[in-house]
């Protein structure tokens, strides 16, 4: 039997991921009494810093900050301190000849490529700006006659028109294109093509030839033009800062309180029950968990209608990105890199075909024998993360399909680990000797640790059929589920994942607006 905790909240947020924190803080600032319940001992969800080996700390899941929306920063008065900012992407060449990609310039390629890159990025920046606008709005409801929705449509149409005829034509074509075609149309240098392809497919179940990968590329730019940074103290410090902002606004955050279920009584949410049997009452329950977990585990599909439950069950959320953490007794040797380059973002994606071939096995439930890798050495600029003189490598490795044939047992993990180390060793011959401890988080591990279905960063594949009006599914794209009092505020909702806070902010605004209208 559950006992009610007496106090009634205006809203309960399930999960203290960064979106949950943003949402709760904004609600609290609007005068709501908000309780946040987090299963883990730490706030942050997938945006945390934790010790993975004695004395070595790492951003356990997300490790680069791309898209934290300026609106979120402003409204919550955040002043995130970055250890590294505006990182250069260095596409590693085996021969030590690397290509360096910056926001609007590239080095190590032909003049023609460099010019094309400038044009490309300029255009991408323009389109990304448009997307950013869209990302910070609640998508209109399809087939709805609502005036607010009509305005959103009209604004969207106008914004696209404002691009001008030529750019509008390009935009309407590009968003459906694949990155492979775009890079082969524009560029010659294989590593340049490879690095851009990688950016388009990282965190997805797509290859560069998959249509719509232009859109996923743009997605990455929709924050700060794709400028990546590493927060001082790891991603956990962003979450801590958000938690502080939330508490400052009056939010109660309780960690180590896994929610067992969202209580539905008479067809509406009335509160939550924790694993420990405590009950908290509220007529608004906002889930930062992914949509599948929210409906299937927390609410119970029986409380939804069949069509909706089926749609949610069809959400594709098969994670493909593994996270690798290495404790190193020193920086590895990489030919052609200066010491300060270790502060940058290194990628292994020698050409676009390599990336495509890495993707192929994922379609059949196999991991890539030659994976693509995104590497950072967060300890390089941030001594708090490793013992003096020692270093941490934090890498995202693809493809490691969630639904691996035979499952992610120790053997499968060891085999994949070997493929990764072999790949790394081509660029860092001494890497193996430098490793003193390691941790490989496959999507299955990420699912377990962070309670994300499929271990998918975005809580659901980022593809056009799960985007905008139909994210996470048709009928729930406005942050409200078709069950009274239940809302979504996580990456599974519009616009998607990444440490952006957009979903959390949009959800808070949608909830407040609806309340006002009622």
């Amino acid at each position, binding site marked *: 039997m559950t006992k009610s905790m007496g106090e009634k909240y205006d809203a309960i947020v399930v999960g203290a991921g960064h979106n949950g924190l943003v949402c709760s803080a904004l609600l609290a600032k609007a005068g709501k009494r908000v309780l946040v319940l987090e299963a883990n001992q730490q706030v942050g969800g997938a945006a945390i810093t934790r010790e993975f080996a004695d004395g070595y700390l790492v951003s356990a899941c997300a490790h680069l900050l791309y898209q934290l929306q300026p609106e979120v920063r402003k409204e919550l008065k955040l002043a995130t301190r970055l250890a590294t900012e505006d990182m250069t992407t260095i596409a590693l060449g085996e021969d030590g000849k690397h290509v360096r990609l910056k926001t609007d310039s590239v080095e190590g390629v032909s003049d023609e490529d460099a010019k094309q890159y400038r044009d490309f990025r300029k255009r991408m920046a323009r389109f990304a700006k448009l997307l950013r606008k869209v990302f910070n709005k609640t998508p209109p409801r399809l087939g709805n006659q609502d005036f607010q929705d009509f305005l959103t449509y009209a604004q969207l149409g106008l914004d696209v028109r404002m691009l001008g005829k030529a750019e509008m034509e390009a935009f309407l074509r590009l968003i459906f294109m694949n990155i492979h075609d775009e890079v082969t149309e524009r560029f010659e240098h294989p590593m340049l093509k490879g690095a851009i392809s990688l950016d388009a497919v990282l965190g997805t179940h797509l290859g560069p030839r998959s249509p719509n990968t232009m859109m996923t590329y743009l997605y990455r730019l929709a924050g700060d033009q794709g400028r990546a940074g590493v927060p001082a103290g790891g991603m956990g410090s962003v979450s801590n800062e958000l938690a502080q902002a939330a508490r400052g606004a009056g939010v109660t955050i309780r960690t180590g309180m896994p929610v067992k279920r969202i209580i539905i009584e*008479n*067809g509406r949410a009335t509160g939550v029950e924790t694993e420990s049997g405590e009950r908290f009452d509220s007529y608004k329950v906002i889930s930062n968990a992914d949509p599948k977990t929210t409906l*299937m585990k927390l609410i119970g599909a*029986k409380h939804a*209608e069949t*069509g909706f439950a089926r749609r949610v069950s069809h959400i594709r959320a098969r994670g493909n990105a593994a996270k690798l953490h290495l404790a190193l007794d020193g920086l590895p040797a990489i030919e052609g890199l200066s010491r300060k380059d270790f502060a940058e973002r290194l990628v292994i994606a020698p050409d676009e075909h390599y990336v495509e071939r890495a993707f192929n096995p994922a379609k059949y439930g196999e991991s890539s024998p030659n994976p693509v890798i995104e590497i950072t050495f967060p300890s390089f600029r941030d001594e708090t993360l490793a013992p003096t003189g020692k270093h941490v490598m934090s890498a995202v490795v693809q493809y490691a399909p969630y639904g691996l044939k035979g499952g992610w047992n120790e053997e499968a993990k060891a085999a994949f680990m070997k493929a990764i180390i072999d790949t790394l060793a081509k660029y860092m011959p001494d890497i193996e000797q430098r490793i003193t401890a390691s941790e490989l988080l496959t999507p299955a591990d990420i699912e377990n640790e962070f309670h994300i279905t499929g271990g998918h960063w975005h809580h659901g594949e980022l593809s056009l059929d799960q985007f905008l009006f139909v994210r996470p599914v048709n009928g729930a794209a406005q942050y409200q589920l078709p069950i009274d009092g239940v809302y979504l505020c996580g990456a599974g909702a519009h616009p998607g994942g990444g440490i952006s806070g957009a979903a959390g902010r949009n959800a808070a605004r949608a909830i407040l607006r609806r309340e006002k209208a009622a």
Partner: protein
Amino acid sequence: MTIVEGPVREAVPQGPLKTPFYPRVAKIDTVNQWHEWKGFSSPDALYCEDLEYFSIRNGTAVFDLSPMTKYRVTGPDAMDYLNRLVTRDMAKIKPGRVAYAVWCDDQGQVIDDGTIFHLREGEYRICCQERHFAWFQAATIGFDVDVVHETEDIAGLAVQGPTSYSVLKTMGVEGLEDLKPFGLIHVDFQGTEMMVSRTGFTADLGYELWIDPAKALDLWDALFEAGENFKIRAIGTHALELARIEAGYLAPYAEFLPVDETIRTGRSRSPLELGLEWLVDFKKPNFNGRRALAEEKRKGSTWRLVKLDIEGNKVADSSYIFSNSKAKGESIGFITSAAWSPVCKQNIALGTVRTPHGKPGDTVWVEIYYQREMHWNREMAKATVVDKPFWFPPRRGATPPGPY
């Protein structure tokens, strides 16, 4: 690549299959008029559809129901599952009772109607026209329930008409005295369990028998032997269809289209539009279509099903319905089923009209085209909207039933 070699698999049967009762039905048949019903041969008529019809109203008519689609629902959540699936409150349907029900999609549009038999505590059978396994499976998400397709595992016979009680009693079925409409009992038939329900499609005294296909022919023989003195006749679909219209019951593909098979939006119907509001229990916190139906109830429906008593005797098949006698302006709807009722001596029809037209007591006009010796004639016939079935005799509900 090596291809496995083995005996050739014969093709699945092509053309209609034969039901367990087929040998007996075919033997009686003299007119050789058959159609396909969900993959099985079913007779239009067997000797004379008019006489077959009167056996429903005057004696005992036997109709082979075996092709009806059947699903078994079991498991701890069976009742909750059904309660979310259909619009009415299944908690009120106790073991031994049968519920007529409709199920909707999330938009409150009817997928199908059917009868749900509460066979035993926590064990149900859904019996309907169309196939819905995919939908019923999808509906299991979140429930501890097992749904099994069992169409071919059960043979069914409708035994309908004023003497049907006497026939079954003569055959040795016990316990019928207390069996009320929409009740069911399990009885022994020659060592095999048989389910008898007081249900039917005729609005007359009648039963349906459900049994293992292996015993089908024995059942048929015993039934006809028992019915010898009670005017027992096998009938075809046409006779049953006439009785169905007299009863004012709905048929899929006539009064409504299963929404999941419609290509065009707006060609489906909600239970409210089909006059089935009594089947929609808004007190249930959640069921498929609840939100949409609540909204529809608030805003008003688009369509309304009407039962029409039409003047004259020209059958109004496929007619347009107008609000005036001159057929001025747009039609307000159309006829979905029509017949001349031999027992009521009445020109009757079911139709669908746009609201606010079609309230009981309203007068509407029906544009009837009919053919006499090659030539076509047109008649605007006045029709009254009625709210009761055209045929609903007291003997249908009498418990215990009378002997005839």
